[in-house]
């Protein structure tokens, strides 16, 4: 007697002895079903998510993303990951930098206002500082909204997503609310405006987001012989990639470098595990993409 798996998408657990008999029916059905679901999901994404995608500017990463970039009209989540030493990051600078980079990409594609909704959390308040953000987009286009409650952040984001004059919406909040996430996602799909959720700490995932990134800071490289600060480096992890191409690694991860003088973001090639002794000039291998 074949055992039907409770999950429609998991392969049926079949005792070895009866596998041969069950294969005739359960096998083809499950694969065709899965194929159908995949096609539906893809059709859904292409049909409703605004069809367009904005490249992140990193070809290695864009290759994995659906339509070659971040889908507009969808919700993307960016969270600050723990520091390389495993400690909780002191601040979300790296995640903010990556979010600002994406906002810059969206802003370059569409004219319009960038809506930045935030809820000051904790005991100190550190709002975004425009002179630094000017590296990614023109801060004159920013509309900064400060809310005292998480519901208000979600509400402001949703209102922004419905407004035709908005190029992109970013929300900074610690709250995880499945209903709000779903509403944001629907609003984004309807209007084609991209929505970013920036989280200062790792949080339970929003099931509706199309991509989910975890960004942590990484030590930069000084000029040899000096202790000066090099270009900022971030560890990027793509922890969810709905509709995207599968990757070899379970969680694809890159080390990227943001050069605040040339304003370009580039993937730094890493040596493979076990070949720690291998050293080469990284700059020769860097994929550069002027943002």
């Amino acid at each position, binding site marked *: 007697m074949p055992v039907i798996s409770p999950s429609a998408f998991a392969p049926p657990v079949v005792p070895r002895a009866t596998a041969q008999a069950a294969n005739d029916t359960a096998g083809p059905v499950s694969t065709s079903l899965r194929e159908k679901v995949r096609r539906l999901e893809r059709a859904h994404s292409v049909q409703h998510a605004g069809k367009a995608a904005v490249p992140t500017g990193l070809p290695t990463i864009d290759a994995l993303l659906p339509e070659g970039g971040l889908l507009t009209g969808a919700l993307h989540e960016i969270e600050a990951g723990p520091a*390389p030493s495993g*400690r909780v990051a002191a601040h979300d600078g790296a995640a903010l930098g990556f979010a600002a980079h994406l906002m810059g990409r969206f802003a370059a594609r569409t004219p319009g206002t960038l809506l930045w909704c935030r809820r000051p959390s904790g005991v100190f308040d550190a709002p975004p500082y*425009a002179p630094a953000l000017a590296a990614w987009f023109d801060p*004159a286009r920013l509309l*900064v909204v400060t809310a005292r409650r998480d519901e208000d952040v979600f509400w402001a984001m949703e209102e922004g997503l419905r*407004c035709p004059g*908005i190029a992109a919406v970013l929300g900074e909040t610690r709250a995880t609310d499945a209903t709000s996430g779903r509403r944001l996602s629907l609003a984004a799909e309807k209007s084609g405006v991209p929505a970013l959720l920036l989280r200062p700490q790792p949080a339970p995932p929003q099931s509706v987001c199309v991509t989910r990134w975890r960004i942590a800071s990484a030590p930069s490289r000084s000029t040899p012989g000096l*202790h000066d600060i090099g270009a900022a480096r971030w560890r990027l992890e793509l922890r969810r990639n709905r509709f995207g191409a599968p990757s070899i690694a379970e969680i694809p991860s890159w080390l990227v470098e*943001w050069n605040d003088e040339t304003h370009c973001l580039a993937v730094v090639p890493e040596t493979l595990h076990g070949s720690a002794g291998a050293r080469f000039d990284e700059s020769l291998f860097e994929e550069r993409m002027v943002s």
Partner: protein
Amino acid sequence: MRLADARALVPDLVTTPGEPQADQRLIEAIADWCDRYTPWVAIDPLGGALAEEGAEACSAGGFGGDAGLLLDVTGCAHLFGPDEAGERALLADLVARLARHDFTCRAAMADTAGAAWALARYAERQADLFCPRHGQRDALASLPVEGLRLDAPILETFVKLGLRRIGDLYPLPRAPLARRFGDLPLTRLDQALGARDEVLEPRRAVPAFRTRLSFVEPIGRPEDIAAATSRLLAALCRQFEQAGVGARKLEIALYRVDGSVDRTSIGTSRPNRDNPKLMKLFEEKLGELDPGFGVELMILAAPEVEAWSGTQDVLPEAGTLALSLGSDGTIDLADRLALRLGPENVVRLLPRDSHLPERVQVAATVSSKPAADGAWKHLAGLKGARPTRLLQRPEPVDVTAFVPDDPPSVFHWRRHAHRIVRADGPERIADEWWRPRPDGSRPPANTVPPVRDYYRVEDDDGGRFWLFRDGPYKLAASGQPTARWFLHGFCA
């Protein structure tokens, strides 16, 4: 009469302590309620009764017995009927409605506030309470001089001199009267007779535009209130169009059957007379209004209006920016957000050319002029590397450094130690000596202004911080360093 005397006369007298504040609140509530007749309502500063040119007095006996309201009903009585009939109807309506709320009152109407005040308090016959146009001289002649709102010593002297009626003052020569009693009696007399202006100060700013809608049956359902608001708004928008203005602020007031008033207002960042957009703003607020047991009257007023700028702000000046903030609904979005979150919480960032990091970024309301295209890029190009987040107020940190003038090797912030591996700096930023200090004083000449030395540091985890030392390293007499360290921002 004192309480002890009263108790001696009536042993089982019921007494309650007076509550002047509660009385004040009550009279203010009644004044709010009187807004239904006219926006120009004043609480009588003398605690008496009141009125004027088409105005009436109501002297509510009971609390202090003296409380009174002055209503300027000029141009309002036509809602109740033509000319004098309307004024009489308004007066009767006022008294009847107050009586329904169990207030005993006497209301008088006259051409001047002074005459109405005197009539409401001292008229002997009910018929005298309504003073026909230009009739105040005759009406007042037989009233006691107390009706002139004079101080007690003057009144005493008047009585001693045999001047008991207001009419007794008419034939007296003015100059000796003024010499003997000062200006006050003549001023009051002239005000009562209409020879001199008397300005009533309304409790609330009198709006230039106002529409009202009263209901035969009280309404209470949210949909009904929304529908009524929409009708009022349509009428008001027509008024705006005729006057060539747009609203910056609108206020809606619900007059409930129990005599209380509930109001709420909306604001816009530019003059607006677009009915659907204003209605959308109201929809946010209507939920806050409590209709209570029912609403019998709604008044929509525009306390702030500005000349209508029409389509001017849609002109594509300064490239994409003006476009992006103009016609595409962003302003309306900002209005909606500001309405719910407060106007100070919905801001644009404007650049300011300043050396001090905290002064560079100015949060301005949406109605202010946006930054020019590229102004930020230009400003950012002038500055060094800046953090992506700037703390509103710098946080003090504990720092360890090998050499005093070196960047620190370890700093402690919020009980976490950060070992610094890399550092850039210092970037010395001096105070702007040409600017007055926050307390208004100017720094003395020929002194070195306070400086900050900024360092951009990276800890062993790659986290980046912006630290500064508030002055050069120096040792105080006690051996403690004078300069302190602060954390001012987080870099990407």
